[in-house]
């Protein structure tokens, strides 16, 4: 029985130790905002924060996550969609199909927490998530807009 600290609450997960965090979140904790896109840490649809760091949850077994590590998913990023990244995303209509956007938003939020005023080069380096609809330019614009909105980390 694994104990995970998800969005500020400790939950017990009755899953085999090799179960990736992604599937523990989706199938055991019931948080489906974090998506499965590839299972090999390529696409970033499964991105969550662990202690504030970006983590691709599809290749991280729950046996390697401790109860003291704070996991934040898209559902826990803000209680009401008010995180500056989410606000900017809505203002610019960033998502298309939206399936990759939980991961995009989590990656963007972590970047801004680390670098409140990221350059284009910072964004290039941090935002390696795959979007097949092609939202990249609006993702970039959204990050700059959120930065202007004043994330101080």
């Amino acid at each position: 029985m694994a104990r995970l600290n998800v969005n500020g609450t400790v939950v017990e997960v009755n899953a085999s130790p090799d179960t990736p965090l992604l599937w523990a979140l989706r199938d055991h904790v019931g948080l489906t905002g974090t998506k499965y896109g590839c299972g090999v840490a390529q696409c970033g649809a499964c991105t969550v924060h662990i202690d504030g760091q970006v983590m691709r949850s599809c290749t991280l077994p729950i046996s390697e996550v401790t109860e003291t590590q704070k996991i934040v998913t898209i559902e826990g990023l803000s209680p009401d969609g008010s995180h500056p990244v989410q606000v900017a995303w809505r203002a610019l209509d960033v998502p298309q199909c939206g399936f990759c956007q939980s991961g995009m938003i989590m990656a963007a939020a972590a970047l801004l927490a680390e670098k409140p005023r990221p350059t284009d080069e910072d964004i290039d380096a941090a935002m390696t998530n795959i979007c097949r609809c092609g939202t990249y330019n609006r993702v970039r614009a959204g990050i700059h807009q959120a930065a202007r909105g004043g994330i101080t980390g």
Partner: protein
Amino acid sequence: MAPLDNAAPSRRGLMKGAAAGAVLLGFHLPSKGALGQAAPAGQVPEVNAWVVIHPDDRVVLRMARSEMGQGTRTGLAQMIAEELHCDWSKVTTEYVTPGQSLARNRAWGAFLTAGSQGIRQSQDYVRRGGAAARIMLVQAAANRWGVPAEQCSARDSVVTHTPTGRTLRYGEVAAEAARLTPPAEVPLKAPGAWTVIGQSKPRLDTAEKTTGRLVYGADLKMPGMLVAVPRRSPVFGGRVRSFDAAAVRGRPGVRHVLQVGDSAVAVVADTFWQAKTALDALPVEWDSGENARVQQATIDAMLTEGLDAAEAFVGNQQGDARAAIAGAARRIEAVYSYPFQNHAPMEPMNATVVWTPTRCDVWCPTQNGEAALAAAAQAAGLPQTAVDVHRMDLGGGFGRRTTHDWLIDAVLIAKQVPGVPIKTMWTREEDMVQGRYHPVTKCKLTAGLDANGEITGLHMRISGQSILSFVFPTALQNGRDPVQFQGLNPGGTEGAIGYTFPNLLIDHAMRNTHVPPHFWRGVNHNQNAIYLECFLDEIAHATNQDPLALRRKLMANHPKHLGVLNAVAERIGWGTPPPAGIHRGIAQQMGFGSYVAAAAEVSVSNSGELKIHRIVAATDCGVAVNPRQIEMQVEGSFVYGLSALLYGECTVKDGAIEQTNFDTYNVLRLAEMPKVETIVMPSGGFWGGVGEPTIMVAAPAVLNAIFAATGKRIRSVPLKNEDLRRA
């Protein structure tokens, strides 16, 4: 387990009111908002098939086309709202089911969401649906007041009796309106009077895509639900010879180990991870058959043979190109090729099915609800009236979800576990090797030139795979696949060539492979535009002509094609020196009812590294319903098109596709994305699509710019296989 905030969307019973015999299920749906299914019948009477107005004035507009990111939901809602005169801030939407459509004589028209036709093919009847509802709402208010309807007007969901200033809200009269006879005459506004169409309204579905609350098919949960993970024969056409179910049956959570039809197996377990890992451990022996001997080289050789074959289907013929080329002072010839591509939508294939001997319900993302219903019913062994398909928003489609092989397997799995909701989910690996692929083709182009370098004849011989012969063989025309000639046709709305040549022959030697082809965003335009637009560039350089000037000479009879080409040329500064190290390319094409052109600025480093700096794209789609959505589709088209150009390639080894995930089928990432400047220039009078057209000029514009930068003509994609260092 401790309760979590935001843990899951609220639950509501959705199946209430569905056809008799339906399994009553609660399942997770968004707690509120635009994305539900049709409300239970009888709850709030509809004004008509398209419009439901609640007593609190909430407007629910019904959708037959699917939303997969292309913005059709918002565009269609704008068109209904334009005529309904409703308060836009109160608009939500809901999907109708194909079962409801069947019961109501297709009241909502076609469900097919492909070919960039969601807006343009339904624009007339959805606007009339909105107008008819407005007329009835106004009449209901007039009846309440006992005044002629002509004295009343409607705006922002309020009916006003002009002489007295009395008002009634739509919500107050909707129930009465619903009882009125629909009007016989439903005039539509002239485009000049539009106030909603043409506006960049924010999308209706963005908010739930920023919080993780939107429930995709892959996210569905139902009480008692199990998860199935299937695997088909890796070699197309192969069959299951045997599998050792006992080897995995005792694993945690595993409930069933099943054969699915002739060609697949599946493990059904409590969770995805349990099913997936058990499937990985399941010993399966396949009977791969003759197809296991097919290699990529086998296919390439077959296509090469077709380039000079005597027999070919003619797509466009003007004059006598063969004779003109034979008698030409000079000839130019080149062979191009285009590989298999996987759609690779971010959400792998999935469907949730509850099957009983008398009823089958399906929840899935599909681009065609009606085709999904037909496929599900056939697989279920039930009449369509005993089946329904409840659509979920798609995590990408790009054509993959217009065909339902994955749904058929999901029904065949659920049929073996009656009464239990089974969510069948593909792994990314399954999605990659069981795709329906962009067809593979080659093309030999031969031009005859006179002594002045003017083109006297052009022959384009396409050799390769036909989509229709696999997907809709009955649509072939005496064996000829008309879709093969997209963008090269002598006329028509779907892809007319933009040039006039003195003599022209475009023909197709059909060479089909065992790899199943399908419609893939942009379809045959993708390679046809590369073939023609890059070859024209070759002719221009071989004859010392400016590529734009050469095109203009050939485009005198094609003003709309020329219009978009001129627009991008002007914006990019064609004819003026580009910044140091930057080189330009240009291309145009017409397809899916729209005219598009692109100009690209690229640089290539001494070590052969390509950087695409800037793209200017112009679209003439006749009517622009939502300019911002069009810009998003144009930007997205470049990501899709440039992904294919840079990386996209599926290859065959021993009859199976070699690429199994994004590590071997890479796609464009944000850092590689150029700046895109979109020119939306609707010239009016026609309705063109926007989801696909721009993709077709992405690759040729960049390839032509690469030639300008390097002097190297790349005739085979993707570029990952090419050395771009200067010649």
